[in-house]
């Protein structure tokens, strides 16, 4: 028996060659590399927000309300991107907002990915009544416009950043469930699963350690795109006043607060908007790049 285990472990399942090949394919697309670079910058900003940001996001400079950006007439280097209606430094708020946005994306995707994978695995592995129940429920959730569902959930739970994350996680859930189930059904019919079962693996081992790693590619892609969806939805909820509450420096709620000053000070609107655009674009580019690199069917 021991000989068998050793020789099985010796077979390189995913050697360095696979990783290098993946990296080569990924870097072939210029957009994907730009996306990745932007995300790295965002992560650095988010982690180091306390050190990098020149001021605290909530510090109010009463003498400098609505100060224009540095390159405008009357702007100063003290506030590079200007200040908002109550005199808070916009650059500092944006940097702290990056931390919030990435956190929102991370938490809502983590919740819905883990829940979705478990539900999808159970549905795809056990089939029958369990599958029908789970999938019909997901159909009902998909039958409603995502934004409406999110707003309904927030309306029930009450406005707030945490509840907005739950709402977004619920909205994203059906996609992961469907994806996992489809992949599991396809994989479960293959011979390596049968051989593992004959070798005596229990259902839990079969589901999580035999089948799941082979369904990972589409899930990774969907999770990346889910990140951008989560950030967009959180910004929309924040804008509607249902997500992060003031004075939290969340990009969407910053925009909502600034809307009435658009006539006098366009920078209070353009910079948070630009931050959302760049972040979402970066995740979309990276998702596209990952899909091309991970999915051999789409390689042309």
């Amino acid at each position: 028996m021991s000989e068998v285990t050793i020789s099985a472990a010796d077979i390189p399942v995913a050697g360095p060659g696979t990783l290098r090949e993946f990296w080569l394919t990924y870097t072939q697309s210029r957009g994907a590399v730009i996306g990745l670079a932007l995300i790295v910058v965002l992560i650095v900003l988010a982690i180091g927000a306390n050190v990098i940001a020149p001021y605290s996001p909530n510090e109010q400079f009463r003498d400098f309300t609505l100060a224009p950006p540095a390159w405008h007439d009357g702007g100063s280097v003290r506030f590079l991107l200007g200040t908002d209606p109550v005199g808070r430094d916009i650059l500092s708020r944006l940097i702290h907002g990056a931390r919030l946005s990435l956190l929102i994306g991370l938490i809502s995707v983590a919740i819905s990915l883990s829940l979705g994978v478990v539900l999808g695995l159970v549905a795809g592995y056990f089939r029958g009544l369990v599958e029908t129940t789970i999938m019909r429920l997901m159909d009902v959730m998909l039958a409603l416009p995502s934004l409406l569902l999110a707003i309904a959930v927030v309306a029930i739970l009450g406005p707030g950043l945490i509840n907005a994350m739950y709402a977004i996680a619920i909205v994203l859930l059906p996609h992961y469930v469907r994806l996992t189930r489809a992949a599991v059904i396809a994989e479960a019919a293959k011979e390596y699963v049968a051989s593992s079962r004959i070798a005596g693996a229990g259902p839990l081992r079969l589901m999580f350690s035999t089948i799941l790693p082979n369904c990972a590619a589409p899930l990774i892609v969907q999770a990346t795109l889910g990140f951008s969806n989560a950030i967009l939805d959180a910004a929309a909820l924040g804008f509607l006043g249902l997500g992060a509450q003031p004075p939290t420096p969340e990009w969407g709620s910053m925009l909502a607060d600034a809307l009435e000053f658009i006539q006098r000070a366009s920078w209070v609107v353009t910079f948070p908007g630009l931050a959302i655009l760049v972040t979402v674009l970066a995740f979309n580019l990276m998702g596209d790049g990952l899909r091309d690199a991970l999915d051999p069917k789409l390689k042309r």
Partner: protein
Amino acid sequence: MLAFIIRRILQSFAVMAVVAFIAFALFNFTGDPVTFMVGQDATQEERARLRSDLGLDLPFYVQFGRFVGRAIQGDFGLSLRQGRKVSTLLKERLPATLELAFVAAVLALVLGVPAGVYTALRRDSWLSQLLLAISLIGVSLPTFLIGILLILVFAVVLGWLPSFGRGDTVALGWWTTGFLTKSGLKALILPAITLSLFQMTLIMRLVRAEMLEVLRTDYIKFARARGLTDRTVHFGHALKNTLVPVITITGLQLGAIIAFAIITETVFQWPGMGLLFIQAVSFADVPVMAAYLCFIALVFVLINLIVDLLYYAVDPRLRIERLAAAQ
């Protein structure tokens, strides 16, 4: 065929039941209405009497049944904030939202389909590259940001168009329309573009992908081999076959447009149902919220149902597949 229709209708009922349940849950999650209605010094007996008058002492499922029964008749009670019947409030706001959604949908189709066809046929031209780049940005921009940027450019900087409201409206019976006045039409332009931009990019990408798929098939090769002109091949054979999925998605997106109007209406202070809903959410005006959720879900479910049945009628392949599966 009959079994398919019946199954789809049952599914629609299931969706409506879940939505009704969510709407009903809203009432129970936002606190005890009796506390709001009686004074501080009401006795225990008075509270109990009011509770039984309102039917709040009944078991949960009976209350839910009553709620559904009244909702089917369109009765959602009185708005807590405005003290008027919720159904009247919604009816007043309905024309504004529907006109906006209609114009946005037409705009998305009229611009999205040609752009998709063009980018599929002339894959390497600079205009195609530009359109694709714009569409990627369009997908990454949140709706409210597009609206704000449009206000910034066309209302603040250029001063051509109004930044909020619906302009003057003309009443036709209970329907108020903004199509007939100049200010109404001007006020419609920015919100309609805002609402349609996302759908436009979606339709464009879809048409492009489908068209590229179809252009690779054998029957297109044979059509070329027969010596047909490019125009006949592209528009007579290829486009016709791409339109079936496009019609489906567009139909489904119509419901999404009405739902996403919430954001556009908030940005432009457009007096539609979405704005009413958002105001209701911030004031915890539960009857209005519940009525809006149920109404939008009903519209969405009906559109889905019609599109599915149309799809079935239009595409003969589906019927054959189902027949084969049945045997």
